[in-house]
């Protein structure tokens, strides 16, 4: 991935610089290398110099579409690099009328899946210094030598279960599409939890959610959380207490997940950005599984024209309760 990496970054930079420097867009959202070598953080490129810092490697996990909410207030036209999940996030914002399609130029990047630094550390048995990638294998340089592993074993959770690596919407597609991936274990954890008894499940979630310190990183990273004032911060009515204790944590996470019914694109950013690693994606996946089961398969963000499940109905809909 390394040499292909340099070549691909140049391809991206070249495609983007025409528009940025040509004035078609006044801002480009991309990635740049962060403080550590295994971090790629968002880049707000406005000039030639900014474009130099552009990066496209195996750590560009951050969802850039989310930044459109703020940036489109100050810029008329914005360009954004979109992987599969970022493109579906864009469709989410489009469907929620948060963005106007003509305001944004989308540069599609079929995504090979991003690596999980913790898995690198685990595989390397120590702090890895550097990695190189060739045809599906990763060579990790670590103090005492090298470790090698299949790339697929080192992916982030959200990339392991990713069905649509290719962007669902784009203006230019910069690389050849990867094609839809076969995903079998998307609801594995959900099904395991469903097997448990009510008490065990409550125990599981009480343990997980007790770590939540209500920093709301999950809400900030989430493409479907676009309210101007979130219900947790409202005073009249005071839906939600401020203290982080079991009943309040449950209230926040259950309600946020419920707000994602038929809207969550399963991009996993909430789980990835959670500082205390709560498996938040499982709550959203439970709702996705139930909506698919009850009201027909629906993949949020794929097709903005398709009616979201909770905004429509059929008179003969099934119900999860007795209708006798």
């Amino acid at each position, binding site marked *: 991935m390394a040499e292909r990496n340099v070549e691909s970054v140049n391809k991206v930079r070249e495609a983007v610089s025409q528009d940025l420097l040509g004035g078609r867009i006044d801002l480009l959202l991309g990635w740049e290398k962060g403080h550590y070598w295994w971090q790629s953080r968002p880049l707000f490129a406005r000039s030639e110099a900014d474009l130099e810092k552009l990066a496209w490697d195996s750590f560009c996990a951050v969802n850039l579409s989310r930044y459109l909410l703020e940036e489109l207030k100050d810029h008329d036209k914005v360009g954004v690099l979109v992987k599969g999940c970022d493109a579906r996030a864009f469709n989410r914002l489009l469907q929620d009328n948060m963005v106007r399609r003509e305001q944004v130029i989308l540069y599609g990047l079929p995504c090979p899946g991003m690596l999980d630094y913790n898995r690198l550390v685990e595989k390397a048995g120590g702090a890895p210094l550097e990695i190189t990638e060739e045809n599906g294998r990763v060579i990790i340089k670590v103090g005492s030598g090298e470790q090698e592993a299949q790339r697929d074993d080192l992916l982030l959770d959200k990339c392991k279960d990713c069905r649509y690596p290719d962007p669902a919407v784009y203006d230019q597609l910069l690389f050849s599409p990867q094609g839809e991936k076969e995903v079998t274990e998307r609801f594995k954890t*959900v099904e395991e*939890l*469903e097997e448990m008894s*009510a*008490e065990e*499940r*409550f*125990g*599981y*979630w*009480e343990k997980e959610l007790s770590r939540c310190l209500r920093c709301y990183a999950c809400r900030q990273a989430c493409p479907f959380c676009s309210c101007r004032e979130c*219900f947790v911060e409202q005073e009249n009515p005071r*839906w939600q*207490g401020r*203290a982080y*204790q*079991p*009943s*309040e944590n*449950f*209230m926040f996470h*259950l*309600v946020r*997940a*419920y707000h994602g*019914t*038929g809207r969550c694109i399963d991009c996993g950013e909430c789980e990835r950005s959670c500082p205390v690693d709560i498996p938040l994606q499982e*709550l959203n996946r*439970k*709702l996705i599984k*139930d*909506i698919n089961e*009850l*009201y027909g398969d629906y993949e949020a963000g794929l097709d903005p024209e398709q009616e979201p*499940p*909770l905004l429509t*109905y*059929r*008179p003969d*809909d*099934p*119900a*999860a*309760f*007795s*209708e006798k």
Partner: protein
Amino acid sequence: MSAALNETAGGWEPLIVSFCCNWCSYAGGDLAGTSRMSYPVNVKVIRVPCSGRMNPMFVLRAFQRGADGVLVAGCHPGDCHYTSGNYQSRRRLSAFKRLVEFAGFEPERFEVRWISSSEGDKFAEEMTSITEKIKALGPNRKMRDARWQSVTSKV
């Protein structure tokens, strides 16, 4: 803590909050009244214009405030005074019911029923059956807001 539960002299009595839609289920409740039927006193009804008005947050709020069971009652699909209120609430509350069960609530804790304005007997039956089921399950500790109970039980 146990003192703060709904302890009464005769042992624990469950508290059931029932949100009833004004046009059908609430009228069904009125009919149960005029027909002098009886159902357990544990059930307390809050009137909402339509089952479509049922925000899942009201259900969670009830559990936080110490309710042991919540029953939402609306018109039979097709009978809604606002034509589509119960169609929408059927989807919303189905997804939400599965979610709270996934979070660890027993299925009997939160239930939804369609009760028409001419089904006074069904209204009484449903209220009795949910009370008995919850009595068998025992008090609900999940999502109970301990601070709120102890603060207010003195009032």
